[in-house]
């Protein structure tokens, strides 16, 4: 972690500034680019676009649920909205945003000149737009898009689905290939391209969490590919993996899916842990408390994620012994997660804290992610889960960990690093507006979902009982406000991209330490062509 050395800037002596900053021009720069910063930018902008597309789908859901009864869309279209909203947000917004941040920051944090496999890097990004074109195009086809939920349980996705399934499967195959290539790149970069002296236990936590995430991706994305392949052959080629009539088992689908699905939810949160672990020490002006325990906790969470999958399926009729096993292992995850939360709080303890926008989002992350974690513990309790299963309580839980967890982590990371990317400070006033609007609206949106869920409102249903009407109207208003609040974020980002704002210094933040803060702002097109020496 300690990289307060002054001689890393020797790249300045070896090369002329204009040589480092030479960029190809025009659209081909972006199409053919193998530069980690360009690809990182592409990933991040793509994720932002997908955030708004996924958000619009969510607003169709919230518009329909504004009042009881069926107003705007028919139930089949409603199901398509919940399905595609989930897929777009998980695979289009959160995961690409993390890969974008990894592309930008991992080489700069470990003193590497670029990602290890630059051409594969280009491929892994450019597959994504095509994959989502395929997925989203199904919404405009006869019969509509996939409607089985983002978890596409068999037989909903096999016997009862329409032919959009084929498009969906192909799209998920492409997404999987893209993620796997991205993950391989991160692993090879971190293994082989660390600067001299950048030992394992000196790596910034963002690099550590991404390394572990990349291994999770490599381990489970192929399993997802296998699952969708089985769905495809069951539907079109007469196999019976999930069809009881032919000797298969629909519950098997859930086992295979969640064997992928549970590590997947940690894929979507571990990099956010890394981002927050970079931001808290910077604005508390103290080194991170318990660095070693953070690394060990991350690795433990990753390991545990492989042995808890069946807590998503408590009501499928498992034997009590199996339910108890999965309940206890699930609760065990609270221990390493608690270590992390404790360490963040201990880092802030008696620090000289200031509350710029990244810090605000990071602190909100800690509080709100913990709320999501606690509702997760409630869901882990078997008898309680039988009541909560498939209600809005579950929706509230995973939106607290994914929106106020993963998304807030990403947003705080963008505010934190955007001065380094663009060379100008974002507008602090707009950033604070964005933060407070998001914080209030996101809690209006998701907190009441706990209550309607506990009162028994089921998820994925376009209509509901009358007693939930007021709450749902309130939730929908919160949703609209949260969506609008993100426009302030776009405004902030566009301002920085157009270089409007105060010029950022090399270190940017007073308390910032690490290799990425020792190169000029904006970061030159090529950095660390001569490896820095880390002491």
């Amino acid at each position, binding site marked *: 972690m300690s990289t307060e050395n002054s001689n890393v800037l020797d790249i300045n002596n070896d090369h002329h500034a204009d040589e480092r900053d030479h960029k190809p021009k025009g659209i081909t720069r972006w199409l053919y680019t193998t530069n980690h910063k360009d690809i990182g930018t592409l990933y991040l902008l793509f994720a932002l676009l997908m955030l708004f597309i996924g958000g619009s789908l969510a607003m169709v859901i919230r518009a329909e649920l504004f009042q009881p009864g069926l107003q705007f869309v028919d139930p089949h279209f409603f199901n398509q909205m919940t399905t595609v909203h989930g897929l777009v947000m998980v695979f289009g917004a959160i995961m690409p945003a993390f890969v974008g941040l990894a592309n930008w920051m991992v080489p700069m944090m470990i003193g590497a000149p670029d990602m290890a496999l630059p051409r594969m890097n280009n491929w892994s990004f450019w597959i994504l737009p095509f994959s989502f074109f395929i997925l989203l195009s199904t919404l405009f086809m006869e019969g509509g898009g996939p409607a089985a939920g983002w978890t596409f349980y068999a037989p909903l996705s096999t016997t009862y689905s329409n032919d959009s399934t084929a498009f969906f499967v192909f799209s998920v195959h492409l997404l999987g290939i893209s993620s796997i290539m991205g993950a*391989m790149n991160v692993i090879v970069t971190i293994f082989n391209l660390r600067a001299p002296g950048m030992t394992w236990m000196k790596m910034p936590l963002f690099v550590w969490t991404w390394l572990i995430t990349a291994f999770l991706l490599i381990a489970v994305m192929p399993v997802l590919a296998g699952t969708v392949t089985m769905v495809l052959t069951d539907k079109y080629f007469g196999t019976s993996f999930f069809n009881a009539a032919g000797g298969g088992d629909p519950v*098997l689908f859930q086992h295979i899916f969640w064997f992928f699905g549970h590590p997947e939810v940690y894929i979507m949160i571990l990099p956010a842990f890394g981002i927050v672990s970079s931001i808290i020490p910077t604005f508390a002006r103290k080194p991170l408390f318990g660095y070693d325990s953070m690394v060990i906790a991350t690795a433990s969470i990753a390991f545990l994620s492989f042995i808890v999958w069946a807590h998503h399926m408590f009501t499928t009729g498992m034997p009590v012994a199996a339910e108890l096993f999965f309940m206890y292992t699930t609760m065990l995850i609270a221990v390493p997660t608690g270590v992390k939360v404790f360490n963040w709080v201990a880092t802030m303890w008696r620090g000289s804290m200031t509350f710029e926008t990244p810090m605000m989002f990071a602190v909100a992350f800690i509080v709100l992610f913990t709320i999501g974690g606690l509702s997760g513990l409630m869901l882990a309790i078997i008898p309680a889960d039988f009541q909560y299963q498939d209600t809005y309580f579950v929706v509230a839980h995973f939106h607290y960990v994914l929106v106020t967890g993963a998304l807030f982590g990403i947003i705080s990371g963008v505010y934190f690093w955007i001065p380094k990317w663009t060379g100008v400070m974002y507008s602090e006033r707009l950033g604070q507006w964005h933060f407070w609007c998001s914080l209030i609206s996101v809690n209006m949106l998701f907190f009441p979902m706990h209550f309607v869920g506990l009162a028994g409102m089921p998820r994925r249903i376009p209509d509901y009982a009358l007693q939930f009407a007021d709450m749902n109207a309130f939730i929908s208003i919160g949703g609209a406000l949260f969506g609008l609040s993100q426009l302030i974020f776009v405004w902030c980002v566009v301002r920085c991209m157009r270089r409007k704002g105060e010029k950022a210094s090399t270190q940017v933040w007073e308390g910032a330490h690490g290799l990425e803060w020792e190169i000029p702002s904006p970061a030159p097109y090529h950095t660390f062509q001569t490896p820095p020496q880390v002491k």
Partner: protein
Amino acid sequence: MVSHRLLVRKLVLICIAMFGFGFALVPLYDVFCRYTGINGKTENTAAPASRRVDESREISVEFLANRDPAVPWSFAPEIPSISVHPGQVKIVNFLVENLSGVATIGRAVPSVSPGEAARYFKKIECFCFVEQPLDAHQGKAMPVQFYIDPDLPSHFTTITLSYRLYNNTPQTVGR
């Protein structure tokens, strides 16, 4: 520069192995369920005849029959339940009748509840071992010959044998 090739190769191998593991879960799951009796899966092959009878206790065996909407048959057990001593061999008939004017092939999939008792449920002969064809409007009685393994733990007093009937007529499979 370090060569990346070796590491990339290893990572690709992990990916291929995990893709295979996804498919390996299918037989593994089946074996695991059969071995532990989870999911109520019973051995779907003929068991050897019973060797001893435990007359000290009686087990109530209940029968359930339901059908997939795609099978145009009526399907019901002859009797709703029967009392047996563990080890005692019984034959129970399930009555089917094809209500449609089309010849159909049915396939019954058994399930035993509670799941932990599944492996003590021994079938000597069962209509569920093979496909059952029925001509238009034909009816028949399908027998299952079974006994309860005398090793059945004593806390089980009631066992339910449930069948679900599926349409296995070739052109309708997978649709």
